[in-house]
């Protein structure tokens, strides 16, 4: 039963656009229709991001009350992994840290929707999200619009693939360091 949704903007670059995107009437209603009761927002460490978040909550007060979603936010946490594991759905920026933390969570794994940061769009950051969407490990809301998020919500009931097993470089490093006789 879906209950908790985590929205995370990452620690490195502010991503106020994602917070604004989630706090729209359409997205909040869609979340409520999915059966979401708790919305956790990691809005970032800058004071500006905090203000953006608080303004968003204030502007959406009527929708939040009518849907009955319990909203609370925080700037940053040391223990993101616990936050992620206790969620049913993670809506994340395209950081590899969050993507891996989510996809490597123990079962039941949260579903993952990745929204790229428009400011970093010309960078390589989102490549990994696109590649993992091709592997059916996550959903990638490429255009970072309300429509793309809501269409991603419609695909959440599909069966997602497991990320391929983590490989070890220990043998290679041991060989190069000369502590292993043979590779």
């Amino acid at each position, binding site marked *: 039963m879906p209950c908790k949704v985590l929205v995370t903007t990452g*620690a*490195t670059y502010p991503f106020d656009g994602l917070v604004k995107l989630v706090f729209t009437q359409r997205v909040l209603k869609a979340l409520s229709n999915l059966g979401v009761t708790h919305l956790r927002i990691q809005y970032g460490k800058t004071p500006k991001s905090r203000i953006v978040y608080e303004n968003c909550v204030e502007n959406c007060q009527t929708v939040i009350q009518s849907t009955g979603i319990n909203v609370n936010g925080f700037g940053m946490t040391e223990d993101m992994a616990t936050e992620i594991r206790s969620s049913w759905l993670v809506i994340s920026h395209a*950081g*590899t*840290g969050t993507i*891996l933390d989510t996809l490597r969570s123990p079962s039941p794994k949260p579903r993952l929707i990745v929204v790229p940061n428009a400011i970093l769009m010309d960078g*390589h*950051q989102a*490549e*990994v999200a*696109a*590649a993992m969407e091709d592997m059916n490990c996550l959903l990638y809301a490429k255009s970072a619009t309300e429509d793309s998020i809501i269409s991603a919500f419609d695909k959440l009931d599909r069966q997602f693939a497991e*990320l*391929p*097993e*983590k*490989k*070890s*470089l*220990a043998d*290679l*490093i*041991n*060989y*190069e*360091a*000369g*502590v*292993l*006789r043979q590779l």
Partner: protein
Amino acid sequence: MDIITAITIREALDVLYEWRHPVLVLVFSCVAVAVAGVGIFAVLVTALVQSYGLPPEKHPHGASAMFVLGSGGHTTELLGIISQLNFGLYPTRTYVSFSGDTLSTVRALQLEREKSVPQVTTLELPRARTVGQSYFTSIFTSAVCGFECVFAVAKVRPDIVVCNGPGSCVLVCFAALLLRATRIKLTRLVYVESIARVNSLSLTGRILISVVDRFIVQWPALAEQYKDKGVEYFGILA
């Protein structure tokens, strides 16, 4: 008719002595220094090129490893790779991070506490370039970083350097190459390209691809694209 003149060395020196004009002396000494410089450089480059043909040195009693922690996601990935090593094989472990990135050091020490009795060195080097710094001033900060890297690497003399970017690790690798060229230590270099790189190499990767001993990528498309360069692919390492 040919005129054959035989000049003994003594005579040649006498001639030079008579011509001992300051400008001439200066020119001669400059040429001598330049020839010596080119000679040393050629010897170092030859020694370095030769070192790639050598197998890794054996260290049955344990090796000294240097891990270069980039920052944020780079640190996460590298610590994940390091956590799979048997620390008993690496009695000396040095973590390098760059100024302003205390979080990487903290996380490295966290991993150390989880795995073993901490017996480890952490080094903080100045950054080559901070995000947003102008390119002109970054010339000088890179120079400072370069010198610090050379000193740090010469002091630690690691048997192996493992790094995965970003930019500043290039300088650590070049410093390690200096150790190799001078045969102070045949330091081996392992570079792991970030999982964020799916279709193209990072600038750091493109610089280091021809100088490191092992170059590992995490996506098949990259492995295919750079297979002539000896790139290796094992799957996702994070």
